[in-house]
């Protein structure tokens, strides 16, 4: 595959123009195309190429880290790709300025791995491809993009065209291809437009039919039950005394088709009193109690759990909140872990939080079972609070707690089965049944969900709320106030706890550490991006320097220098005196006898380690005849070994006698 000269430079300029990095692109292009003018070349060994690959990998990883730190994660891939021509430039530069026309790309990442299997490759076509892709990620929407891209590709194809065809055929086919290419671009753009339109319509319809809102305007039976299988801690509460038992997240008014649906979805932005304070209930406030809450909000938005009577919220990790007329608070911009101080007084209530006709609606399908229960209770003539007590007593006495889902079986609805037959279920069944029973008595009621705060952590010394503490209860509107009616058997917390994992305690430690780390990430409020960026750059330079020190890049000598080197340079090895001394021996080396065998035959050295001696001889030969010579370690080894054997030779009688006889 031939890569025509100047095309890489042109592709780089194209990239620079598309990504507004023309200055860097010009410098790179000059560097790369300058290789045609500059005659200096460097001798790079296989290991040097691997080191340069390491440097490039390091630069790539550092750039990825910097991009992740400084840009939105969503654009990370696009930005990384758009800077690839710069991050990969060491590879192409080292190929162009080396004596080799190919490079070995591999990485050791600090280990001495065997890279023998890696095949050398010409990196130029790949670099050219990278430049084109990087230019495309610039997304300039320029009308010149396609023509310039076409010119570069024609340039490349022209050099590699099939020679059996005429130039006319080549250009004719190119013309057809460009036309078709442009047509397909228009086709792709149109197809994308149609797909987006259709997709939007599909999702809109999907959400409409499913009535599924990301902020849970409805709830299905079993949803809270599912949360109960997990021991994960999601909320921590710190209070001067015992905190309120229930933290409400949302309430629902309409029960239909096994689902509870919210009454008011009219959320409006709640203006902040100060930068970090919101009044959930308009003043005047009764003097209340303050509690501190830390709550996981992984999506950085969601419903805010807080106790009944909560009127003021203080937090520097929440930036924007919305509220509806039922008092449900929704965080629309916050950190992944929010910490807030909440002031509450149990008697305070939002003035707009009043019941509507929906708070009395009962599905026809459920009436038969509810009426049966009403008949059993027989308290229709009593006051409202007595009715509530009767209902509570009824459930506590006749029902038990279990986490099993109740199906409808032979009854018309699961609720009917629960009330008339099974008499066992979890909080959602009790809350639903209570809400509907109250409505049958004419008491406006609603279904509320949230968390029960019951457990004090042995580790954190705070009240912790796990996922399994998710709870549902009923709220009845009596005497102008919403009152909590929790009919779930009181042992539900213990029952749930029995199902908890054996590893709960070790996992608590993990959750604690994770929570502290998250708090550290968001808590300080200090932007550490610059510090981290500097740390990354410094570390990268240190590693760069360490890898660079391993490399021994030498400038390749010119042909003239090489001739001089070959003709006149003489290398004297530390081993030479040993050879000279042995040459004076009486016993001459025989034909076909290796040097080491000769030494063994002469028996000059007592207890000669033939392997060691052979290694020295090999190093001697390498020093004299191998163009690469010896490294420092090998030279030291040769010098030390030679000195040892020279000392023995000086006292060897056989050689001395031969020398004496010569004299």
């Amino acid at each position: 595959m031939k890569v025509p000269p100047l095309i890489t430079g042109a592709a780089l300029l194209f990239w620079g123009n598309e990504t507004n990095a023309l200055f860097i692109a010009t410098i790179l292009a000059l560097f790369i195309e300058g290789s045609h003018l500059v005659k200096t070349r460097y001798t790079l060994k296989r290991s040097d190429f691997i080191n340069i690959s390491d440097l490039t990998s390091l630069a790539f990883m550092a750039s990825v880290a910097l991009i992740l730190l400084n840009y939105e994660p969503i654009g990370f891939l696009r930005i990384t790709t758009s800077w690839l021509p710069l991050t990969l430039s060491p590879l192409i530069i080292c190929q162009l300025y080396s004596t080799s026309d190919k490079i070995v790309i591999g990485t050791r990442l600090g280990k001495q791995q065997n890279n023998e299997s890696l095949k050398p490759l010409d990196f130029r076509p790949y670099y050219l491809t990278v430049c084109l892709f990087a230019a495309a990620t610039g997304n300039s929407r320029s009308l010149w993009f396609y023509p310039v891209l076409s010119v570069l590709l024609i340039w490349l194809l022209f050099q590699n065209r099939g020679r059996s065809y005429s130039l006319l055929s080549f250009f004719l086919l190119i013309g057809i291809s460009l036309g078709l290419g442009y047509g397909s671009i228009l086709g792709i753009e149109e197809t994308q437009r149609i797909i987006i339109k259709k997709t939007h319509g599909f999702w809109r319809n999907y959400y409409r039919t499913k009535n599924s809102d990301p902020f849970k305007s409805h709830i299905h039976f079993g949803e809270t039950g599912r949360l109960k299988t997990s021991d994960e801690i999601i909320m921590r509460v710190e209070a001067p005394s015992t905190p309120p038992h229930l933290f409400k997240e949302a309430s629902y008014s309409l029960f239909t088709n096994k689902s509870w649906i919210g009454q008011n979805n009219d959320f409006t932005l709640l203006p902040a009193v100060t930068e970090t304070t919101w009044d959930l209930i308009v003043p005047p406030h009764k003097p209340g109690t303050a509690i501190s809450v830390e709550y996981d909000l992984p999506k950085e938005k969601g419903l805010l759990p807080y106790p009944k009577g909560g009127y003021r919220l203080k937090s520097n990790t929440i930036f924007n909140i919305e509220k509806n007329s039922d008092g449900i608070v929704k965080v629309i911009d916050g950190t992944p872990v929010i910490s807030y101080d909440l002031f509450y007084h149990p008697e305070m209530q939002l003035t707009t939080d009043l019941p509507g006709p929906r708070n009395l609606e009962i599905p026809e399908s459920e009436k038969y079972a509810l009426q049966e229960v009403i008949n059993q209770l027989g308290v229709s003539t009593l006051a409202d609070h007595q009715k509530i007590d009767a209902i509570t007593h009824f459930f506590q006495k006749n029902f038990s707690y279990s986490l099993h889902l109740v199906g409808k079986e032979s009854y018309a609805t699961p609720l009917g089965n629960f009330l008339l037959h099974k008499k066992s279920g979890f909080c959602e069944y009790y809350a639903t049944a209570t809400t509907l029973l109250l409505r049958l008595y004419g008491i406006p009621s609603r279904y509320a969900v949230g968390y029960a705060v019951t457990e004090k952590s042995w580790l954190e010394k705070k009240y912790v709320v796990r996922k399994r503490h998710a709870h549902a209860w009923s709220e009845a509107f009596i005497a102008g106030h919403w009152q909590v009616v929790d009919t779930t058997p009181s042992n539900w917390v213990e029952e749930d706890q029995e199902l908890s994992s054996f590893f709960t305690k070790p996992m608590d430690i993990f959750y604690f550490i994770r929570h502290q780390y998250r708090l550290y990430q968001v808590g300080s409020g200090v932007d550490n991006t610059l510090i981290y960026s500097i740390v990354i750059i410094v570390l990268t330079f240190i590693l760069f320097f360490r890898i660079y020190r391993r490399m021994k890049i030498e400038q390749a000598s010119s042909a003239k220098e090489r001739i001089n080197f070959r003709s006149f340079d003489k290398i004297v090895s530390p081993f030479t005196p040993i050879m000279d001394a042995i040459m004076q021996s009486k016993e001459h080396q025989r034909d076909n006898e290796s040097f080491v065998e000769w030494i063994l035959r002469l028996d000059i050295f007592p207890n000669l380690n033939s392997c060691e001696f052979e290694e020295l001889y090999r190093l001697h030969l390498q020093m004299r005849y191998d163009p690469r010579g010896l490294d420092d370690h090998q030279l030291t080894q040769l010098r030390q070994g030679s000195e040892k054997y020279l000392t023995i030779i000086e006292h060897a009688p056989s050689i001395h006698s031969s020398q004496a006889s010569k004299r």
Partner: protein
Amino acid sequence: MSKHLYKLYKHTQRCKEWVASRFTNMGRLFLFILGIAFLFGINVQRTMIYQILSIASVLLIISFVCSYRFRIKVKIERNLPKTCIAGRELRYNVQIENLGKKTHSAIYYREQSSKILPSFLEYSSFTEDGEEQRNLFDRKMGYYRWLSLIHINNTFQCIDQELPDLAAGKKIESTISLLPLKRGTIHLEGSTLSLVDPFGLCKRQVLCQSPANVLVLPKLYSVPKLYFPGSRKYHQGGITAAQNHGDSSEFISLREYTHGDPIKYIDWKATARVGKPIVKQHKDEYFSRYGLILDSYVARSYSQIFEEAVSVAASIMMNQDNSEAVLDLFFVGRKCITCSVGRGLTDQQRMLEILASVTTSQNRKFKEMTALVKHHSSLLSGVVLILIDLDEDRKELVDYLIAHKIPCKLIIMVDSNGKFTGKTDTLNVDFSFTEININRMEEDITLL
């Protein structure tokens, strides 16, 4: 090994071969571009990669369609030698006659091997060199094993070589080069002629069947001549084996002429005296006889160390003066084999051909070799022992040779780690030997 994985690798290999046969290097780069552009260019609003996708796909499609235009009718004759040497380029002439009515230019020639992909049995029973050092995932997936098997089955390397213009009805001659990669036999299925499309992305190949075989002799290294202090011994070689050397002119006695005796040995004076033909009887031949023992006991069907050991054996054999001594080669393939070379016996070329076909002895024990050498030891003046490991069994042979004062040159082939059983185990190695590392053969072999 999973059969599903085997099928996956087999289909992938076929796919790779198809891509290699239909696309040029540039074409493969465009395929790569197409793949990447398809992955990341779907969203036309975020990037302009879809424009690259669009033009690259159009160019590839047009190129692919154009490549189907190639039709050619030729007659090809190769002047192949019978043997060649592994690692040394083989050049030979090819005569190509264009039987069609159209002149073709820029046609590329390539030798096609009769490749058969490894069967599941081969794949599952094969063990790659150093497989035990791979991690669990690699061992379970067996992909490196597959690659190694493909690499081993690849007997030669041949690149596309451009031919001169093929005029209609004319015959041309061109020199083709081929690089044999390993010893054994190269099976050539035929010749492939290919034509590249106008964009240089795709190619169309036409296979001209002409099966042929070439025997690849083992790779040879430059080895110094080995010297043995061993003395010459009497051998039943006689005058045939002696040829020019030895003590053949040493007179012993006179005897009656028997049919077949050379006339020049008739002692005419004695004949006249006795009255019947009498010939001079000379002392029989004395010459040196060396043993070259090749260790072929490997648990695997293919071993790089064994291949290099064969090359060392071949190199040593080729460097001995065969007019002065006889060299007996001992090895065990499917059975114990002894071959002699030198002094008029089998020539070196024939021995190289034998070495080209030597296989490993997977299910046999080294004791057989020990027995074979013991049986011949009385005849041997010296022994070159090429081992691929040093364990108890092998040490027994070395100890036997030392005990019987048979001069022995012991060579142990080692891999890149320089390890063998004798080094790692508690084997008492009290004799000298030469290690040859297969990664620096050229250097180590000069120190023999």
